[in-house]
C-alpha cells in the first residue's frame, strides 16, 4: 500500500485504539491491533479488510466526533479498504475503475444486456417463439456453445484476476507465518457466519446506539442465496454434461428449487441492504463508496429478479427476451467481478485467514 492520507489517518486512529483497547470484545480488529506497536501500510490494509463496518466501536468511542480527536474507526478503515481495492487490482491499469465504481458497474450492466439482446436478435429467428417446456428450448434462442464460450471466457478471466488480486493482497498484507489447517477452518467459520459483523454477538449499530442483527441476516440471505444460485447452475451443468438431461428442468428438480430459493433469498438480501442505505447513519461510513455498493446490490438484485421472471415465463413467447436480459446481467456480473465491490469477499476472507493464523500471538503491553 501507498502512504496516503487515508493510511496516515488510519494509523493515528489505530494507535489511539491500541492505547485504549476498550473495544477489544467487539470484533477481530482490536485483538489484531494489540499484537503490534507499529502499523505498516500493509498492516493497515489487513486491518481495514478485517473490519466488517458494524459501527459498534464508533458508537462506543469516547473520542468520536465532536471530540477533538474525532476517532471514527469504521470510516477510517473504509477509506483504506477502498484504496486497497484499487491497489491490488489486476491488471494494474484497471485500478481506475474503482474510482467511479457505481458508474462503471451500472454502465457494464447496461452494456451486458445490450450485447446479449443484439446477439440474440441477430443470430436467431426463434426469439419470440413460445417453446413450451421442450428440451433444449433455451438453446434455440442462444446456442449452447455461445453461452459456454462467453461464460467460460469472461468468468474464467475474472476468477484469474481475482486470484491475482488475492495474491497481491497476500504479498502486501499477508502474515509472516504459514497457513495451517486449523487456521483455515477458523477463517472459513468466520466467513460463513460473519461472526465479526455482530459487535461481540449483539449486532450492528445501524443508525443509533441500539444494536440490530438486520445487516448480518440480510447479508446471509444475499450470500447464501447467491451460493444456492451458483449451486443451481452447477447442478444444471452436471445434469446436462454428464447425465445428458438438458434444461429446462421441471419445477420439482434440484436446479429449479435451488435457483428459486436462492433467487428469493438474494432479492430479500439485496433489496433489504439497499433499503438500509436510507436509514444508516452516514458518519461512520464513507459516502463516495455508496455508489459502488448500490450498483453491485442492484446488479445482484436484477440477476435474481430476472432469473425468477425467466422461470415464470419460460414456456411463453417472452422467454427469449427474459433470458437475454437475465444473461445480460450475468455477463455484466462476470465482467465486473474483479473490478467491483465483489472483491471484498476475497480480501475479507484473506484478512480473516491472516487473523486466524495469528490467533495465538500475545498482545503487547498491558499484561
Amino acid at each position, binding site marked *: 500500500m501507498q502512504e496516503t492520507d487515508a493510511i496516515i489517518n488510519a494509523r493515528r486512529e489505530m494507535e489511539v485504539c491500541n492505547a485504549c483497547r476498550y473495544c477489544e470484545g467487539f470484533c477481530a480488529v482490536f485483538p489484531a491491533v494489540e499484537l503490534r506497536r507499529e502499523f505498516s501500510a500493509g498492516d493497515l490494509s489487513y486491518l481495514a479488510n478485517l473490519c466488517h463496518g458494524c459501527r459498534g466501536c464508533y458508537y462506543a468511542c*469516547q*473520542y468520536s466526533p465532536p471530540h477533538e480527536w474525532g476517532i471514527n474507526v469504521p470510516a477510517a478503515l473504509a477509506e483504506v479498504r477502498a484504496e486497497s481495492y484499487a491497489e491490488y487490482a489486476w491488471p494494474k491499469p484497471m485500478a481506475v475503475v474503482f474510482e467511479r465504481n457505481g458508474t462503471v458497474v451500472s454502465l457494464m450492466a447496461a452494456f451486458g444486456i445490450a450485447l446479449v439482446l443484439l446477439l440474440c436478435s441477430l443470430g436467431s429467428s426463434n426469439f419470440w417463439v413460445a417453446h413450451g417446456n421442450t428440451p433444449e428450448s433455451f438453446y434455440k434462442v442462444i446456442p449452447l456453445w455461445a453461452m459456454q464460450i462467453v461464460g467460460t471466457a469472461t468468468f474464467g478471466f475474472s476468477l484469474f484476476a481475482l486470484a491475482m488480486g488475492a495474491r497481491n493482497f497476500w504479498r502486501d498484507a499477508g502474515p509472516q507465518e504459514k497457513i495451517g489447517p486449523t487456521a483455515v477452518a477458523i477463517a472459513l467459520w468466520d466467513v460463513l457466519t460473519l461472526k465479526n459483523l455482530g459487535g461481540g454477538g449483539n449486532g450492528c449499530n445501524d443508525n443509533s446506539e441500539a444494536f440490530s442483527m438486520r445487516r448480518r441476516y440480510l447479508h446471509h440471505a444475499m450470500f447464501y442465496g447467491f451460493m444456492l444460485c451458483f449451486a443451481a447452475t452447477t447442478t444444471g451443468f452436471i445434469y446436462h454434461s454428464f447425465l445428458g438431461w438438458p434444461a429446462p428442468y421441471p419445477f420439482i428438480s434440484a436446479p429449479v428449487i435451488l435457483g428459486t430459493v436462492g433467487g428469493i433469498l438474494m432479492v430479500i438480501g439485496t433489496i433489504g441492504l439497499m433499503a438500509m442505505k436510507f436509514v444508516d447513519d452516514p458518519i461512520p461510513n464513507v459516502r463516495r463508496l455508496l455508489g459502488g455498493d448500490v450498483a453491485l446490490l442492484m446488479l445482484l438484485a436484477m440477476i435474481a429478479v430476472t432469473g425468477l421472471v425467466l422461470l415464470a415465463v419460460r414456456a411463453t413467447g417472452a422467454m427469449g427476451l427474459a433470458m437475454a436480459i437475465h444473461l445480460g446481467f450475468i455477463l455484466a456480473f462476470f465482467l465486473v467481478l474483479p473490478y467491483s465491490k465483489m472483491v471484498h469477499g476475497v480480501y475479507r476472507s484473506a484478512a480473516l485467514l491472516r487473523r486466524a493464523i495469528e490467533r495465538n500471538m500475545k498482545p503487547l503491553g498491558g499484561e
Partner: protein
Amino acid sequence: MPDRTKTYDVLVAGGGNAALCAAITARQAGASVLLVESAPRAFRGGNSRHTRNLRAMHDQPNAVLTDAYKEDEYWDDLLRVTGGQTDETLARMTIRASSGLFGWMKDAGVRFQPSLTGTLNLGRTNAFFLGGGKALVNAYYLTAEKLGVEIMYDTEVTDLNMEDGSVRSVDIRYKGFPETVHARCVVASSGGFQANLDWMRQYWGDAVDNFVIRGTPYNKGRVLKSLLDQGVASIGDPTQCHAVALDARAPKFDGGITTRLDSVPYSVVVNKHGDRFYDEGEDVWPKRYAIWGRLIAQQPDQIAYSICDSKAFPLFMPSVFPAYKANTVEELAVKMKLDPAKVRETVKGFNKAVKPGQVFDNLKLDGNATSGLTPEKTNWARAVDKAPFYGYPLRPGITFTYLGVRVNEKAQVIMDNGQTSGNLFASGEIMSGNILGKGYLAGFGMTIGTVFGRIAGQEAARRARN
C-alpha cells in the same frame, strides 16, 4: 422536550452512571423522572463514559469473572487502599450488593466482555464492559428513554433550594437560560469538582494550570457547592484528589484512559532539570500509578520525563501519543527540550549503579536494584543502553476529587446537624468519600455509583409516591 411546569416525582441531577442507575430504578418503581445533564448529548455520561470495568464480589466463577473474590478479601483491599478512611457499614453493604448487580445491569442493556479476554490483569476482580463505559452509558440512556425517563441535555443544575433539610425547588440553566423546576425528591449524582479549576486552585495554587483533567469538563461541583453552602454535612478531604501520571501532551479535558503512561517502572524518570526524584520500581504499577501524579505535581513546573531503551519499550501499553525516539540519550534529551549533558550524566550514573548479573522479570517484583543512587531504583533496574531510546513527558492527571456529601445506607443526605434530609439523596462520586476516603481501588467508583444509584432511585421513588 420535558414539561418543566409539572412537579416530577424524582429529579436526578447528573447524567453519568450513578445518575442513570438512579433514574432507571426510580422509573421502574413507577416514579415520573426528570434527568438533568449539563453536557450536550454527544458528551453525556460524565467520567463514566471513560471507564471500562466495575469491581464485583463473587463466590464462584461466572460468565464475566474468574475464580472467586469474596467479601473479606474485597474489604481487606479497601481497608488497605483507604488506610481505614472508610465507613465499614456502608462499605460492606456496597461490597455485598456488588455481587447482585449483573442481572439488573444486563436487563438494562449493559454487555460485558467474556472473562479472561481483558487486557489488564483484573479478570478475577473486575468485570469489563463490552465497548467500555460509553457503551454502558449508551445502553442506560436507551433503557431510560424506553422506560419514559425525561432527559434534558445542555442543562446545568445551578442550585438545589433547601428549606429545613428538604429541597423545595431546583434552579437550572437550559442552554444558558435560567429556569426553576420542581420535584418531590432529588437525587444528586453530579460527580466531583475536579473540572472546576478555580475551586482546585484554592488548594493547589497555580500548579493547576499544569494539571490535566482526565475526564469530563462538566464536573464543576456546582451541585456539591450548593449543598455544602446550605448546611449539608461534608465528607472527605477537600484538598485531596486522585492524581496519576499522564502523557503531558494530553488534552486539558476528556483525554480519558489513553493518555495514561505505564512506562515508569521500566524507565528512568527525571524532572525538568534532568534529576531523578523517586524510586521508579518501588512496587508494581497498579499500586503506584496513583502516587506518581502527586510526585510530578511536586516537581518544578509539574513535569517529568520518562526515558527508556528499546529493551523496555515493548513491555508497557503504548500511550496515545508517539514516544520521542532517538539513537542517543543526548539526542532524545534535546528533542524533549532537556539539557542533554545533564540527562546523559543521570542515565550514565544510573547505568553504573545497576548491579550486574541480575535476572530481569517484568511479571513480578524482581528485586533488580541499583546501588549507590539517591533515590535508588529497587526493582526492574536495567541499564538504559540499547538504542533507539524512547521518551515521554509526564504530567499529573486528575481523575476525581474526594470531597462529597455525607449519606446513610439509604443514600439519604445527612445535614450538618446530624438530621437526614427529607427528600434529598446522593449517589456516585459526589458521595464516594463516605466509603473511599483516600486512595483508589480499580473499578470501585462504578460499583459505588451503581449500588448507591439503585438505592437512591428506589428510596426516592418510594418517598415521592407515598
